[in-house]
């Protein structure tokens, strides 16, 4: 046991073994432990024995959850906030017909109450769930507006929008399994400024797209690896498959997943590509080299193309996915770039804007006026004119 930090590590290795989710190094660690002494092997065999697992099942999950939760709330004074989005774990049954599916879920955002007064204050509503599906033939389908049912037809495949915004691919007949099955078809889902979207790729991996972003992917992962391409910003929860590595390419770099949750910010106007690892392991590569990230680390690639690895502010990196703007010593320009994407506005600077740094959080569901009011405590003034925000001292 000495070579393990603690027993959780061993637990993780054995669970990882059962889930076929170990990298080479972890496999070696487990192997070393198994060979260390016969008792370890015996314990391992016992753990994964069928009869034990079966009896464990009968005792699992029969808890009094609502009473338990009430007690926890009572003792902590915890206030449940609105859930920003739901994370249903699975796609619809329909997808299995030909074994490939793509689910696009709406983030369950609570729409802010519409301003009742029309001409009192000029305001701008926050972004919402909006996306466009572009088929391989260039046909564009608005996922936001599409009614449930058939939305498009593509080389022997029907594309349907199911309830809850899911997009499902159905083969018209079994014949498509034959000759055409090897033909890889690429689709793109893109969000406009002021839009966001959540989807499930054909392999079950989950993707959150931030505003003004896109993802291009094959409707089936047929080859030896799974490659998708993004622009803008996206958060991934990848279903690990050692036999079919998952790769995300952006303009200048490739990220290879080793089983994992990570965020990529690759907006052109941000001047750098930042890859932030929340869980698991990823390898970031570009023309100048590569780096492997451990959880909590961020790689930054700027103009010189060098990959620099730093400790990440995880809150900041994935705040958008959790429905927040989170700023840590951010300057006004950085904040306004983010606002421009989310509120779909242009930003104009008048006069000499004082240099200052902002720390804090703003709910992304706020109207622009509310978000700006929070910033104006710093002595900067903002004016909303139509689809433009004017910043002045």
């Amino acid at each position, binding site marked *: 046991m000495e070579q393990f930090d*603690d*027993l*959780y590590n*061993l*637990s993780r290795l054995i*669970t990882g073994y*059962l889930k076929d*989710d170990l990298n080479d190094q972890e496999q070696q660690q487990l192997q070393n432990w198994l060979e260390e002494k016969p*008792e370890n092997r015996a*314990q391992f065999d016992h*753990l994964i024995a*069928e009869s*034990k697992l*079966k009896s*464990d*099942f009968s*005792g*699992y999950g029969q*808890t009094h*959850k609502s009473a*338990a*939760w009430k007690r*926890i709330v009572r*003792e*902590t004074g915890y*206030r449940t*906030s609105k*859930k920003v989005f739901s994370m249903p*774990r*699975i*796609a*619809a*049954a329909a997808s*299995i017909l030909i*074994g490939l599916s793509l689910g696009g879920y709406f983030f369950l955002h609570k729409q802010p109450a519409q301003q009742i007064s029309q001409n009192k204050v000029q305001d701008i509503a926050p972004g919402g769930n909006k996306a466009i599906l572009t088929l391989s033939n260039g046909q564009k389908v608005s996922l936001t507006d599409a009614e449930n049912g058939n939305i498009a037809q593509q080389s022997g495949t029907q594309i349907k929008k199911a309830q809850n915004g899911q997009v499902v691919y159905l083969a018209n007949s079994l014949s498509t399994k034959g000759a055409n099955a090897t033909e890889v078809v690429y689709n793109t889902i893109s969000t406009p400024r002021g839009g966001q979207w959540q989807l499930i790729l054909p*392999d079950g991996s989950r993707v959150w797209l931030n505003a003004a972003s896109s993802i291009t992917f094959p409707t089936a992962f047929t080859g030896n690896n799974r490659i998708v391409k993004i622009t803008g910003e996206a958060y991934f929860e990848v279903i690990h498959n050692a036999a079919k590595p998952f790769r995300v390419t952006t303009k200048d770099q490739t990220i290879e997943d080793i089983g994992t949750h990570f965020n990529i910010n690759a907006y052109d106007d941000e001047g750098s590509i930042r890859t932030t690892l*929340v*869980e698991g392991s990823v390898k970031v590569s570009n023309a100048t080299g590569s780096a492997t990230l451990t959880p909590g680390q961020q790689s930054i690639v700027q103009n010189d193309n060098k990959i620099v690895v730093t400790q990440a502010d*995880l*809150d900041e990196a994935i*705040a958008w996915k*959790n429905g927040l703007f*989170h700023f840590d*010593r951010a*300057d006004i320009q950085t904040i306004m770039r983010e606002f421009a994407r989310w509120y779909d506005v242009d930003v104009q600077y008048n006069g000499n804007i*004082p*240099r*200052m*740094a*902002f*720390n*804090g*959080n*703003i*709910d992304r569901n706020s109207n622009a006026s*509310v978000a700006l009011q*929070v*910033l104006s*405590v*710093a002595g900067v003034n903002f004016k909303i004119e139509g689809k433009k925000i004017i910043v002045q001292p």
Partner: protein
Amino acid sequence: MFMSKIVHFHNDHQQTAAPELKTLFGRYYDRLVFFAWQIIKDKQQAEDIAQDAFIAYWRQRDKIADHPTTIKNFLYSCVKNASLDLIRHLQVVDQFQATLPCIEQGESYIIEAIISSEIIADVHAALEALPAHLRQLSKLSFLEGKKNHEVAEELGMSINTVKKQKQRALEILKLNLNPETLTLLLAFGAYFLRK
């Protein structure tokens, strides 16, 4: 970058640094109860201990790194310590409690209990994620090991429908479970693929 001043602001009402307590509860409650139960073999006390762990986490969250593994380890540690404390106490008041497996086997039993909880939680989550009509059928078929005609009777459907829906449930589970776990799951309903 030189900044003349730093402005702090908050307009959200939550402690945003910490993950939602409710999310953690949903994710870990059952498996922590199961972990505690394996040690103390008392369901009600296992639930109390798991609840205490969430309460302790919330009170100390400022000192705990906001990282999924760290939080999970903290919760498991709380449950482990509380369970062992309880047993030590019981040992004093009642010598018979000394026959609990974790006393006989010590640390290795704790390790097994954690791994068991993790595996079971994984498969359970995959089943829970099935559409409602397939979930019930899968529980009866795979977990309780009922035969097709028994499931058909219980759910009031034809045997043919049961067969079809089991096939469908399996396809979905395949998407969501890792191959090894799926193999284990299928081993429970040993005759699953037979007629």
